[in-house]
């Protein structure tokens, strides 16, 4: 991985990896480029063993942070594990080793797009497309959810109380999702014209 000739889900827009846009009112939003993204699947009856082996929490709604990265429980016996791109190969190798006999890992790092949304207005941008309640009294740092935004399946992870959110969707939806994010952020000063300019539908 890390081959520069490979595209990211938004490279057709000319975005440099990690490039984003700052709105007024303390809103930042950017494309994180590639991240390590792994689906962890426990074998029948081995959920506890996998959780122990990888240091995962079995409870939904809260992310668990372990040596291998950040994990979100998505279904009983299933987690999504994310880490930085430069750690992905190593993570895949070690996690595969740790899971022998108890579970499987499916590498989905290329199949997902990762976005980050931060600042006091980030919550309002989320509220435009996500029906879940992200108020501080309900969800705080560490909260995660698998839901739908703007008609697109997403995983949302609140990483701090700024608040900052990491959002993951399928790579194929990245262009649509990015355009939606930019549009939702325009009210708060995001100028996305350059960041969405290549749009063309035949």
């Amino acid at each position, binding site marked *: *991985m890390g*081959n520069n*000739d*490979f*595209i*990211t*889900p938004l490279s*057709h827009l000319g975005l440099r990896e990690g490039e984003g846009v700052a709105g007024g009112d303390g809103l930042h939003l950017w494309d994180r480029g*590639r991240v390590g993204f792994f*689906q962890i*699947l*426990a*074998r*029948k*009856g081995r959920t506890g063993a996998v959780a122990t082996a990888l240091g995962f929490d079995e409870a939904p709604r809260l992310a668990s942070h372990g040596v291998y990265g950040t994990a979100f429980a998505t279904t009983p*016996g*299933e987690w999504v594990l994310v880490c930085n791109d430069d750690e992905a190969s190593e993570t895949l190798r070690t996690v595969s080793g740790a899971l022998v006999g108890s*579970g*499987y890992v*499916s*590498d*989905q*790092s*290329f*199949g*997902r797009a990762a976005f980050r949304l931060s600042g006091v207005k980030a919550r*309002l941008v989320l*509220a*435009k*497309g*996500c*029906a*879940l*309640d992200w*108020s501080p*009294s309900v969800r705080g740092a560490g909260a995660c959810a698998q839901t739908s935004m*703007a*008609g*697109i399946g997403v995983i949302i992870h609140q990483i701090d109380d700024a608040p900052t959110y990491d959002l993951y969707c*399928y*790579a*194929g*939806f*990245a*262009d*649509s*999702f990015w*355009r*939606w994010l930019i*549009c*939702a952020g*325009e*009210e*708060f*000063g*995001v100028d996305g014209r350059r960041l969405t300019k290549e*749009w*063309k*539908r*035949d």
Partner: protein
Amino acid sequence: MKTTAYRLSSGGAVDRSRPLSFQFDGAAYQGFAGDTLASALLANGVRLFGRSFKYHRPRGVMALGSAEPNALVELRAGAQREPNIQATMAELYDGLVARSQNRFPSLRYDLMAANQLAARFFVAGFYYKTFMWPSAFWEPVYEKLIRRAAGLGRAADAGDPDRYDHMHAHPDVLVVGGGPSGLAAARAASRVGARTMLVDENPNLGGALRFERTAIDGAPGDMWTDQITSEIADCGNGEILRRTTALGRYDHNVVLALERVSDHLPTPEKGRPRQRLWIIRPKQIVVASGAEERPIAFADNDKPGVMLSSAVRGFVNRYAVAPGRRVAIVTVNDDGYLTARDLKAAGVDVTLIADARGRTSVVSAELEAAGAPVLRNALPEQALGGIEVSGLRLQNAAGDRLADHPCDVIAVAGGYNPRIQLLSQSGAAPVWREDLLSFVPPETDDATQVAGACRGVYDLKACIEDGVAAGAEAARRAGFTDAADAPRPEPRPVAAAKLFEAPKPIGRSRGKAFVDFQNDVTADDVRLAVREGYEAVEHLKRYTTLGMATDQGKLSSVNGLAVLAEARGKPIAEVGTTRFRPPYAPAAIGAFAGYERGETFQPVRRTAMHRSHEQACATFVEAGQWLRPRYYARAGEDMTAAIRREAAAVRNTLGVCDVSTLGKIDVYGPDAMEFLNRLYINNWAKLPVGKARYGVMLREDGHIFDDGTTSRLSDDHCFLTCTTANAARVLAHMEYAAEVLFPDYDVTFCSATEQWCGVAIAGPNSRNALGKLFDGFDVSDAALPFMGVAETELFGVKARVFRISFSGELAYEINVPWGAGEMLWRRLMEAGAEFDITPYGTEALSVLRIEKGHIAGPEIDGRTTAADVGLGRMMAKKDFIGKTLAARPGLTAADRPALVGVRPVSAEDRLRGGAHFVKDPDRFEQESLGWVSSVADSPNVGSWIGLGFLKGGAARLGERIYAAYPLKAEMTEVEICAPCFVDPEGERLRG
């Protein structure tokens, strides 16, 4: 510029230092910041605002806010033109352009007003009666006439250029209405820590206080409002949405509210929506929506100049506008006296107070003592005048005519209707209270409080107390147990005369007494409906249109029901009300669509090679949410030519197709193969590692569900593919099977659709191209035989090569991770250049598979079985999902249509998908023997070819029958053949 003759020199909340220019019907006027279009026009002496829906009667302003039935105008121009905007809700801005509606050639001289001459034919239900015969006239004549006459205003011709969005909110307590009760409730809830959201449809909070001179604790109402508002806003957990109307309340207390973010501005600010739809899911809701004054039905009570008493008072107090020079007040209660008092204080001449009551009250006695011109036992008979009011005709209680009274405004105080619409929408039937002469909300549920005038509490002090108690109760129920318990004040009986409809005019009169102004429904219409049997309240509504459109019973409901009750000889309580419907007030359709319109109607999925397809001039087609290349036209080529070229290239040399959209699922576990054995109809247990197999899945009911190729990558890892369209459904089907049907299987799986992108390379030169693409990877038939699978590396990442074919040619599918997709495409084009590699789209793909008789969506349409499509022999003896029901008599009957090939007898004829097989060429109406499912214009066969389902199937090969296509009046002679047109022995495939 016309003078603002009716603007008072002082008072009101308009900002006289900020004059604003605007236009109405082309004439220029001036108003002030803080005006509505209605108040600004009244200030300029304009009283005629529009023409009514049915009779084109002249109409003016009647109410103050969103209950206004008459003063509907077109606002803005061009693509932003919007009809039926209530002038009372349109905030004035500099440069506003408005136009009256439903008139020709002008508002004052409207030719369509001739409808009034024929008014006796235009009674309730007139078109049900009038346009009955001759029945042949209905569609070509009558319907066109009615459609032309119906409707109000003109929609814009161009697409709506504005932006709309949605916002979700989850307050602990939602308060609807920012009047005294609502403000008190919101403060009470927010101060104990409940996240509180207050919505109010006006630009300023205060509700009725805005229109009154009432003081609270010695301070003006606005000061109290400001004080409470800042307490709510500053407490850290209160949110106030102005210009936001709660449109509807649904199950589980979900409330939809419309925020008019930019309607008060000439154009929305950059990035801001015009309107925003809020989807609010509160734990508790406090409905404090107040009450609406109701009119009284009397002859010509719709003339411009007849207004609600509260509206007259409000225009004077809030906007410093005198609606006229001589105001006569008609009242059933003390409200008319309050209007008289405020008008007098503002220097407006009140010439008469006609009180329907015989007795005095404290308020009336006080005013009378101060010299107010009161006439007791006086009932309105008719509004006099031409286009506008010039006088009031009265009767006394004994039915004697009194002297006509000259005036230019008739202020009508008919009592109050609580605004119960939101509560009624979700099904709670309102309760009639004779002591309040109005419907009030019923006992509400655990998550709903009603406060203030909305439940018949009209006294200001009591309204505030009620709000405090309701807000605290809502907060407590939302879990904020510190909220103090407070007593709820009870509504006090109203001291009012019971008058909904005045007595008929004495002698001959053509005057109409309206109960529903917006829909031109008169009291006589209601009685006629009852005579004709439409007695039930819901029938009455539909027959007469009473309470329809934006009115939704706001002004019309109680008077209409009172007339109905009297006509049926029953009390109002027994007649009941209709159920009010959302939206409470008009909303732009755009607000409901939000972002989901035009290009962004739904999200799209792009494959990793999307940009390569764009560069190759692909025309895309939406396949599910995916954008797939349909064909790649070269310069001067049309679609047909492009498809023929692409399909021929695959057979002759080499083609490449993006197949990334196929559903892909990683299946893991020791029981993976056994699990596949249950999913598919054929045997999987012995599939070796490194091999792929084609499989068919059934639904539990025995019909084909999906098909695809699955490969075994290791002992406990399979890679399953399914059709693009069914990808999500297949995954869900597998989850159901693993969780419910086979819970003991040690198997687990996840989608891998987007991790891998794929191309198919097909054609006699595909192996050559593959060899050039890969270094040191053996692509020989021995190393990678038909249905072989190999894992290797390409560009330094994992790649998979599958020797499978949908086209029937020597073909491979190559999968690489998403990020390497564009590079794979580029390198393949380079490697295949010497073989004239040709990208092909879904159309050519379809031609190729039809030539081979491979089934796809049209053959797996949910109604066919494996046997129907010729795959019956694949069904193994083992158990699999759908096996039992696939054996039922209906699915195994000998006469079921079965898959056949079809070609036109005359090579020039074309085939059409959806055509039916028939015997007789001379008529379309006859027994169908089956249908044509897929067709292709095959360059390799040299004619149209098709697949279809025919009774008798394979037994009829060689028969000549007809394909009937009535939509185009085509009857084509066809020959039935085997469903394979190219290389029936499969030699190319295995070459």
